[in-house]
């Protein structure tokens, strides 16, 4: 992969959805993934969706480096998303899932498939290339989802609860694997999770979102030293996985 200096993600998200007003402003430096953590319904996924352009901003803005992207449709933002339970294309095999972005940029199906080949190799998916998403395990599907997102050569990577669709037995192993791939990607990365263990393995710092508001930001050690809210304290105490 070409190693160019990757831009910083600046997000200032204001979205009102179904009675919840989500407000979160943060910067994410390349190589220093941020975990957005919080209880169910706190608006974590909404923050990601707003950055990706899947829900409109009511106010604020999003930019990558000095490229302002909040007016752009999702397809022009160059933001890769790994969705919760992955949302692979059920009608395409693994190879065509990964080749999807190349195919959308134009060019032949054969060229797009050829471009997918190195990704299949890097993610250990060569033997699964002809399988369809319904025939994959959770861990395999996660690999495909990540390879599909990164094959589009995004500048920013967003991961929405990437571990939640996995069985408990494979979670630790997949977490380490995912951490390796996120490091290799090297660009600004935001991860939504409710698990401090995921945050510890995958992110450098944590942003706590409760009822749409940021209640604390820092490293996990910072949070442990001085939990800003009862939720933060409970979450850290309860985490054993």
């Amino acid at each position, binding site marked *: 992969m070409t190693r160019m200096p990757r831009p910083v993600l600046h997000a200032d998200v204001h979205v009102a959805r179904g009675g919840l007003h989500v407000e979160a402003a943060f910067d994410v430096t390349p190589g220093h993934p941020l975990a957005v953590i919080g209880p*169910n*319904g706190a608006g*974590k*996924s909404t923050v990601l969706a707003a950055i*990706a*352009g*899947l829900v409109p901003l009511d106010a604020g803005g999003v930019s990558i480096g000095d490229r302002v992207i909040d007016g752009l*449709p*999702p*397809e*022009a*933002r160059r*933001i*890769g*998303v790994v*969705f*919760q339970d992955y*949302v*692979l*294309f*059920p*009608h395409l095999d693994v190879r065509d899932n990964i080749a*999807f*972005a190349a*195919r*959308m*940029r134009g060019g032949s199906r054969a060229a797009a498939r050829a471009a997918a080949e190195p990704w299949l190799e890097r993610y250990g998916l060569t033997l699964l290339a002809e399988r369809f998403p319904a025939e994959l395990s959770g861990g395999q599907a996660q690999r495909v989802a990540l390879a*599909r*997102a990164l094959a*589009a050569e995004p500048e920013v990577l967003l991961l929405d*609860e990437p*571990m*939640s*669709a996995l*069985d*408990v037995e494979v979670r630790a192993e997949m977490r380490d694997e995912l951490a390796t791939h996120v490091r290799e990607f090297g660009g600004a990365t935001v991860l*939504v999770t*409710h*698990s401090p263990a995921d945050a510890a393995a995958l992110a450098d710092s944590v942003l706590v979102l409760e009822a749409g508001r940021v209640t604390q930001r820092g490293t996990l050690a910072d949070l442990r030293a001085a939990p800003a809210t009862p939720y933060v304290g409970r979450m850290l105490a309860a985490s054993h996985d």
Partner: protein
Amino acid sequence: MTAPGPRPVRTSPARRRTPRPGGRLAWPIAAVAAIALALLVLPLVSLVLRAPWADLPRLLARESVLQALVLSFGTALAATALCLVLGVPLAAVLARASGWPSLPRRLLRAAVTVPLVLPPVVGGIALLQFLGRRGVVGGLLDDRFGITVPFTTGAVVIAQVFVALPFLVFAVEGALRTADRRTELAAATLGASRWQVFRHVTLPLVAPGVAAGAVLCFSRALGEFGATITFAGSLPGVTRTLPIASYLAMQSDPDEAIALALLLLAVSIAVLIGLRDRWLPGVRG
């Protein structure tokens, strides 16, 4: 956000407690059901029993029969193609209309449903008022461009589209509603434009629904009688389709009528088999 954890495994004990449907029925209900079934099946059995099997090849090789056969399949295929082109976008609008205010949404749905509940003859008369030589738009076409629509093969196709379109629209709309919207969002984040999302994700995902709708649409178009004879008439080789030919033959040559009816029955059975095996998994088994 959903909670993590393994999905609950379905176990059988909960099911075992509920009695299996169909075990015990009061006998009058079973008797009436048998009568209903007989009403559906016996006429078709009788048709097969009374068919002039020995004469069938000769009857079906008649010029008038072949003409009607070619015309019927040609127009029904054309109508199905038109329904696909017009109906898929209409289904897409209908599937998205759930966010609309109540009144326009209901009106739209009603407009699509009308041909299903309307007597086809009424459809034919309405089409005449619309596209006939004195019709609202037909008059204009006739005066300005010298185009006459009614009583042409084109009119047959239009009448078939009118009655068959809802079948396609509702089948595709159902498929669109059950397709996961997030797959379309995922495609957008991978650089797909709206058109590319539709072409490469939405359409393939609803392809089974489109296929099922097209088959239903074709069989409805093939069987069309009332709207066709009203709006297009019964000109041999031009507008006299199989159902019309069969109806007319009943007065002069019942054997030919039965032969034509058998042909239409065979097509219907083929459609049923095709739908069961490939496109309506709920009907399987």
